């Protein structure tokens, strides 16, 4: 059973989960996935075993939420939201820079493996659990993803 106040979980892992969501989804969708992830996590938190790897647990939830968001988007034939939404100027300055776009352009498994290993810092054993394959497959997907990123985003890291 968890013992720490949930606020500590948000403080310690909020930033990493946001980066993971941004690696998986466009910025507006990433915000939604972050919100859904922490709301779900807060609901389940009292029953989380004390020994659990909290970050892996959160990334697993974020993984499912990102898939939900993508599915709901693909069912919407017209992206109306772009037209109706008033510009808020809130919080999206770097969210759509080229790097994140390049990550999001990767095939699903590569994108997920890169996000969970290089953004969240999870070991491949945890990633294999999330993606439902072998540890080797997870490692290969991340390596392929990084190779593709080097090809498509030659500028390197952000300034």
């Amino acid at each position, binding site marked *: 059973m968890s013992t720490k*106040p*949930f606020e500590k979980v948000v403080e310690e892992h909020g930033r990493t989960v*946001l980066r993971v969501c941004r690696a998986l989804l466009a910025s507006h969708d990433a915000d939604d996935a*972050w919100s859904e992830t922490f709301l779900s996590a807060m609901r389940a938190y*009292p029953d989380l075993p004390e020994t659990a790897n909290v970050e892996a647990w959160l990334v697993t939830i974020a993984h499912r939420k990102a898939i939900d968001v993508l599915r709901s988007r693909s069912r919407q034939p017209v992206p109306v939201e772009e037209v109706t939404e008033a510009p808020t100027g809130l919080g999206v300055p770097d969210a759509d820079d080229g790097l994140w776009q390049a990550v999001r352009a990767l095939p699903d498994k590569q994108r997920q493996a890169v996000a969970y290993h290089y953004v969240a810092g999870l070991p491949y054993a945890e990633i294999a659990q999330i993606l439902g394959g072998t540890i080797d497959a997870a490692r290969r997907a991340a390596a392929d993803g990084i190779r593709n*990123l080097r090809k498509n985003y030659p*500028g390197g*890291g952000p300034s």
Partner: protein
Amino acid sequence: MNNPDDLFATPADADTLARLHRRLEQAAEDEGLLDVAYRTVDSPVGTLLLAATPRGLVRVAYDVEGHDRVLDTLASRLSTRVLRAPKRLDAVAQELEEYFSGRRRSFDLPLDLSLSKGFRLLVQQQLPSIGYAQTRSYRQVAELVGNPKAVRAVGTACATNPLPLVLPCHRVLRTDGTPGQYVGGPAAKTTLLNLEAAA
């Protein structure tokens, strides 16, 4: 891009995280998941931690008590669904501000007394009967709750008051009239007594 780890070392957007946190506070409240909401306020007696359950204000804590330790205790005694969510405490913050500026003499807030029980609870519930700027001795409070010999237990009840200020244990003094101990430290007790005497 020598090391893939550096690739993602973007400074995450603090504004975005603050906005998402507020959104989480509201969603948690709407979904009935906000078991304990808390915030801090500045005051003449230092930074105060305020925490509330859906039933009401459950804890007021001084700096010297260690706010992190207090939050850990709330998590273990009430629920680990503890979130910094100031909105539920707006009315409390408002009344405290009025109190510290001398414009408020008693508090009118829903309280959750679930952190106390037994004799301590009995004593703490009696504290608001000591009016603004009045004082009682530990002995007088013991008599008030019908147990005149329980002077020491009254002291313990005051020392473990989960809602100092709101349940005014600072108005309970030693029989010789000196302030005695206080959960927020003796200096805070003197500050409060002076504040009320001057208003």
